[in-house]
């Protein structure tokens, strides 16, 4: 009898153990184990305090609308000033930040943005391949929710104004994610 009584309890215990020890997944992104690691990035003063939150959270603009090269190239690309002006020649033209942007535009200059996320020159990182793996070739993933994939490495940018570096982006961070997601482990995949 004791065996019968203990059996469900044991099963429940094993289930809890398995649940606890299995990787915590973002329910939102299927077939993915997000990388672990935090970085306490300092604030980077930018020429214009660009509000990511207004664009990505409040107005729900897709990250790739502005960072249009991410799906096509190794770099995501800072949007061309002409893209900003596409909207802001009519939207929010009374705001000081937009007026500053317009000044740059009229001088035919791009704002000298400061780089926040970077990897060393000896690391070949490509946005294109990562978006293919986690978004475009990922069954059950909708492209509208790409920001959740971006957040793997860039954090919750839609809750920030100017971007802040919140992930370490170092080799351990990359390698653990590659291990968890069956990414390539050849040295020359990144160091070439």
């Amino acid at each position, binding site marked *: 009898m004791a065996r019968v009584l203990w059996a469900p309890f044991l099963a429940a215990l094993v289930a809890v153990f398995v649940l606890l020890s299995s990787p915590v997944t973002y329910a939102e992104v299927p077939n993915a184990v997000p990388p672990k690691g935090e970085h306490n990035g300092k604030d980077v003063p930018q020429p214009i305090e660009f509000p990511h939150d207004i664009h990505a959270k409040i107005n729900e603009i897709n990250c790739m609308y502005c960072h249009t090269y991410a799906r096509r190239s190794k770099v995501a*690309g800072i949007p061309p000033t002409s893209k900003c002006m596409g909207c802001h020649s009519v939207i929010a033209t009374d705001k000081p930040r937009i007026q500053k942007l317009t000044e740059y535009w009229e001088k035919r200059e791009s704002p000298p943005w400061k780089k926040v996320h970077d990897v060393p020159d000896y690391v070949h990182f490509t946005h294109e391949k990562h978006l293919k793996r986690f978004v475009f070739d990922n069954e059950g993933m909708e492209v509208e929710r790409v920001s959740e994939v971006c957040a793997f490495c860039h954090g919750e940018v839609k809750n920030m104004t100017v971007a802040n570096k919140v992930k370490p982006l170092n080799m351990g961070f990359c390698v653990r994610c590659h291990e968890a997601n069956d990414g390539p482990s050849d040295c020359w995949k990144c160091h070439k």
Partner: protein
Amino acid sequence: MSGNQINRRDFLKIMGWSGAGVALAGCDRPTTVTLHEGKEEVVSYLMPEEYVIPGVGVYYATTCQQCPAGCGIHGRVREGRVLKAEGNPDSPVNYGKLCQMGQAGVQGHYNPDRMTKPHIRKGGNLVEASWDEAMALLKQKVGPDSGLAGDRFAWFTGQVSGHQAVLVNALMDSLGSERHYVHEVVNNAVTRAVNKDMLGVATPRYRIDEAKAILSFGADFLGAGQSPVHYATEYATFRTGDRGVLMVAEPKMSLTGANADLWMAVRPGTEGVLALGIANELVIRHKRKIDNLPAEVRDLITHYDLDTTAQITGVAGDRIVKATQWLHSRTPSLVLAGQSAENQAHGYQIAAATMLLNMVLGNVGRTIVPGTELPFPQLAAKQGGTADLRAFAKAVEQGAYDAVFFYNTNPAYTAPSYMKLAEKLQSKVGFKVVLTQFPDETAKQIADLVLPLHSPFEDWGTHVAASSYDEAVISMQQPLMEPLYPTTRGFGDIVLDVLKMRDSDNYGQYADYYAYLSQAFGALSADWQKTLQTGLLKVEGQAQRINAKAVKVSLPDYKQNAEFPYHLVPSARLGLWDGRHANIPWLQEAPDQISKVVWDSWAEMHPATADKLGVSTGDYITVTSDQGTIETQVYVFNGIHPDVVAVPMGQGHEEYGRYAKGRGVNPLKLISPKHDAKTGELALYGTRVKVAKAGRSEALVRMGGPGRNEAQLGRKLVATVTADVYRRTEGANDVA
């Protein structure tokens, strides 16, 4: 690695704890690989071009300008910057391949020592000037009101072809001048003259790929030859399948010699005797018929029996026998002559003797075949040599010119010191204009006006290869990126501006060289856009006609020289070439293919000679000709004739920027005033020298071998095997 907080001890500790997990924890130290935020700027496009994706390269076709071969290239451009050059697969010159010099073109382009502003000589010094001042000076000196008589003007250039050659000619026409001197130190001018006389065409097509045996008399077709990439590709075919046999006879082992199955150290200047000795062997031993040759030539061949040939040339009889056997049994064969054979005081005779051997072997029409002639002779390459350098020096001495334009050449460096060219130019020519990218010797020492040029990656042009290939093509040169400096200009643009001063009726219509070129292409009924895309305009050419005609040669007796007992070999290599690439660090760092010395000069010497002098590798020696002395370190090596001292060209620059200046010695300065009687070409390999111990010694910095100063720190940059191992594993037949 600034800010790296893992020192070596920490690293070893981490590794000592073992386990990948622990090692990876090291990778998590943020400062090891994490860059500081906000340090660099990332500037976006203001308005992107539709076809530009940052991070993705685009390729433009253009033509390599690192040597006169004219290989087609694809330049990879990213974010408006050229990053890499590769061969254009459609080019019949290089079939998509590119050599180290071509690869290093990018470093020439980004060289920090580029000339970026015009300079005018004032009171002996070059002073920075504006383009307005420079053009005003040009107008004053060569404009229509300058009073410059046409025959008082000359061009002095390296090889030019295509529409640049047309513009060079046009400027001469507008002035009424007829003098265009073309100077290349690495050349085949004597062979061209022999070919013209004996075949009827100067540049037939050589089919290295069709040959089953090749005998090269110093023709370094894999290295410092006329089209190294093209011939190396054909050589690969030659060596595959029914593996062709390569024999090389030369005084000092070249890159081609190092690849030979049979290498023969020949006494310099006796290559013609060796060629006729082999011809004699073919007749005597192998019963080859030579009835088609004139009686006097047949008679001459009989003079060189095996013993006589071996005695004169210093090549052992059994080697001559073996070479003859191979040439006899493996047809078709091909005999080539190169600079060490033909740049002698009787170089024409030597080269003609090698062509006679081709005729005895029946190679003409089989491996020496008609090439395709470009139907536009005005675009053909104007090939250079050293005869023009001699003629120019003489004309300058006689005060023949008031104005000379220099382009794509550096005679103040390459001219032998006996010519005293720089001094004569300074005193006898009133106005010397140097069009150049770099502050070379000619610009710094003799120019009155220096005009800074765009790099080849920033400029327009068309090029026609000098050698003959399957197809006749005009190879396009187009800018791969915006000019790095706003104050350099294109060669064509400058010449066009001078032309406009003198002949605005004909040239005033062209806004710039681009307009001129695109209109010229219209005249050729060529699709301009398509040509820009492919980089090549293939044109229907006429096949050359070859008429073989044997000439009698006369080979002088070999003479010893008691005062200067050694021969100087100023060898050229694929890399520094004639010294034009000494300002490219990659090519300085790339070791010499034979000695593996980097960043310096050296003197190659046979072990027996070194023993006689009591020197070993690293010891300094003086090498003295009747024109002067240079001092450099010895490199003792078997692949050289015991009577020869070889000092490579390329170093010993007095100017030419931070990477070239003050490094090594220039053997061209020692060249004696001797020349080939028939062609006027300098006897570059005909100088006799004496050698003495300088009494000091230092490590000779080489990259290769197991020696203390040759360590590669386990990097295997240059793999080496001993000759014994090579014989065992690679099946080499004869290694000196």
